[in-house]
């Protein structure tokens, strides 16, 4: 072991000893540590896709509060998770203010409900020096120009999702990419990043056509263009609801080309899978990129998936997983540092030897240049006729591969996302 690493470990041991002494001596006395975590969860009362995410987040928070409350009680820690449900950025900030003033929160969790809400919370957290975990918003801008020192991203970034998409489909031989994207800055950024990924990281593939679309526009013309361009894959860089509409429309036009689609939170649920295959039995039963998968049974995931399924009677969708992990990371930031002070939490999260277990089989960590959690992702195939929601998805790929002896795990995970030289974040 290097001297630096041993010094870090010895420091860690000192904290651990303090913690041990406190536990042993204070079993029947005052709590050894106070942990107050605030969560801003979505309550949009919106579409069934949005409702699925909102429900998953609430359930994930409920489960982790219960389980880590169990831990906390065992360890004589005063632990609380307070959740506020919001629909707008203004509501989110007001809720954060209440959580701070009334619950004296040490960590804030959020990121669901869109970019605007997440950016507002990230800015609020920075102004109030509260560590904030973004568990739901993938926008690269939050990791770039809008980055904050107090904000840490559990949710994978746009760049990571696009690199995952490129990785799978290019290796599968899909060389000619046809892109349909939403108008505006974000759509353009997604397209540009995908283009970069295909040019710089995954050779041999290129975007043969890019088309900006607002809703379903002239599906027949689009289908015709797809055929003329001899596209191998059609990429839908549009929101979840529009993805379903396009799948339906393209299938109706007789398109059989593979479809890859943007994995926004509303598309990472069994509800989406069901809607997708109902709308388009063939195209809608393709492959999806997910941050987590309910049928994953390795790396201890079998156990957490089973507990969730038993408790709620439905599969653990990625938003539920993210809600759970975000509270766990908050807990560990305080648990390992033996402190609920912001500086201690931030130091724990950014320590060189910090490692987190997300039930993905590999130790993960936050990238120092943008606070993005490095992690693997999953490719899941929708099963066309499976009635059981749990078995509706079948795991077909993991990126990057976990078992690759002889390679550095950090470098392996950094195959996806923007490395330091591309980062526009300045803390």
């Amino acid at each position: 072991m290097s001297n630096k690493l041993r010094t870090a470990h010895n420091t860690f041991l000192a904290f651990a000893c303090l913690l041990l002494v406190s536990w042993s001596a204070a079993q029947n006395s005052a709590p050894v540590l106070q942990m107050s975590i605030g969560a801003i969860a979505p309550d949009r009362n919106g579409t069934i896709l949005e409702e699925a995410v909102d429900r998953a987040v609430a359930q994930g928070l409920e489960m982790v509060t219960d389980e880590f409350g169990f831990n906390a009680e065992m360890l004589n820690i005063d632990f609380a998770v307070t959740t506020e449900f919001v629909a707008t950025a203004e509501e989110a900030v007001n809720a954060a203010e209440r959580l701070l003033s009334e619950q004296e929160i040490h960590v804030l969790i959020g990121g669901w409900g869109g970019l605007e809400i997440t950016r507002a919370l990230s800015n609020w957290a920075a102004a109030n020096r509260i560590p904030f975990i973004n568990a739901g918003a993938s926008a690269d801008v939050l990791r770039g120009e809008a980055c904050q020192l107090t904000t840490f991203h559990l949710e994978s970034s746009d760049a990571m999702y696009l690199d995952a998409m490129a990785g799978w489909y290019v290796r599968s031989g899909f060389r000619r990419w046809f892109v349909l994207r939403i108008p505006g800055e974000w759509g353009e950024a997604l397209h540009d990043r995908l283009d970069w990924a295909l040019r710089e990281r995954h050779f041999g593939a290129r975007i043969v056509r890019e088309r900006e679309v607002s809703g379903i526009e002239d599906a027949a013309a689009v289908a015709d263009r797809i055929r003329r361009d001899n596209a191998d894959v059609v990429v839908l860089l549009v929101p979840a609801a529009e993805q379903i509409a396009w799948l339906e429309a393209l299938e109706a036009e007789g398109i059989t080309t593979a479809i890859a689609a943007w994995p926004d939170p509303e598309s990472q649920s069994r509800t989406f899978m069901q809607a997708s295959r109902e709308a388009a039995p063939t195209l809608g039963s393709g492959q999806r990129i997910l941050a987590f998968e309910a049928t994953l049974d390795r790396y201890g995931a079998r156990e957490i998936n089973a507990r969730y399924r038993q408790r709620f009677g439905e599969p653990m969708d990625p938003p539920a997983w993210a809600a759970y992990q975000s509270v766990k990371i908050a807990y560990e930031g305080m648990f390992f540092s033996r402190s609920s002070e912001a500086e201690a939490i931030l130091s724990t999260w950014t320590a060189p030897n910090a490692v987190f277990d997300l039930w993905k089989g590999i130790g993960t960590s936050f990238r120092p240049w943008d606070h993005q959690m490095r992690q693997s992702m999953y490719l899941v195939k929708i099963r066309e006729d499976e009635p059981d929601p749990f078995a509706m998805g079948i795991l077909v790929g993991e990126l990057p591969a976990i078992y690759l002896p002889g390679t550095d795990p950090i470098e392996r995970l950094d195959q996806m996302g923007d490395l330091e030289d591309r980062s526009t974040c300045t803390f």
Partner: protein
Amino acid sequence: MRNRPRNPLPTRARTLALALITSMMFALAVFASAQEGQYRVYVANEFSADITVIDAATAQVIETISISGRPGEVRPRGMAVSPDGTLIYASISDFNPVLETPEDKILVIDVRTNEIINEIRAGGNPERLAISPDGTQVWAALEALAQGAGYDAATGEQLGVFRVGIESEGVAVSPDGRWAYITAEATHTVTVIDTQKLEVVTHVLVGNRPREVDFEKDGSVAYVSAEIGGSVTVIDTTTHQVIDTINLGLDSRPVEMAVDPIRPRLYVAGGGTSSVYVIDTDTREVIATVRERMGRRPWGVAITPDGSLIYTANGLSDSVSVIDAETLEVIDEIQAGRGAHSAAIGVAPQ
């Protein structure tokens, strides 16, 4: 009757030769009977729901013990050996880890007959277990309940159940029988239980995702493998405090460990790198990494009581690697069942 060639030797020489040959044959027979069946290696196969029994002397599979006849539904995982080596205890659970199912139990196997002779009911998805040095107590981690429990080995009566943290797994009992250490993977702790008073003493913060725990031969320290942390934590068992952390690398993903009975060494199965890490327990440094010819994803590791051979259970190659403890080289690979999970050594009858 076969025609014999004419013997050119004189009578006295023939007598002497005959005596010499007879003596050699007798010695060989004695040696053979001493080696044959001395140890048996038991390998729990998670996905084929059986236990492979290997004769250590011949490296041959001599039996496969079926656990349920329902592979993919029921699975054996952790195992422990009675102090006299004649009984193997195996934890059994199902593949859908809910709170408690009829499958959750501890099976007791007699190595003399390779038959299941007893069952101890252990609800809550038991994963690993340990036997007290006097053979009277069985301790198990009940994974689905975030608990650890102690049982009377003879009657199966539950002696106590204790909260230990989320996804409990590793279990060990100290050589003096005083302490039971149980790990909790998602809590990153080891819970220390006083086996006499049947109460929790303390919880010790260890590495990330602690899988297994083992005590040093003299009981002075305990070792805890941290799969995600890629390390082995060393705990002083007098104070129950962490005194060192041995870094194996983030990619190592260590699981089971085995303390060498005759050398100052600890062997750690590294599932992530398909290696066995050899740690000098005096210096707490890694002195060797056994990787060449290793099976894929070793989780289980065990060493014969004479310290001569190390066996690993390799879950992705469904095999057992045999390592010469002196040369630290893989000398054989034996086919086991699907999803070889853990290994234990029993002393077979002569």
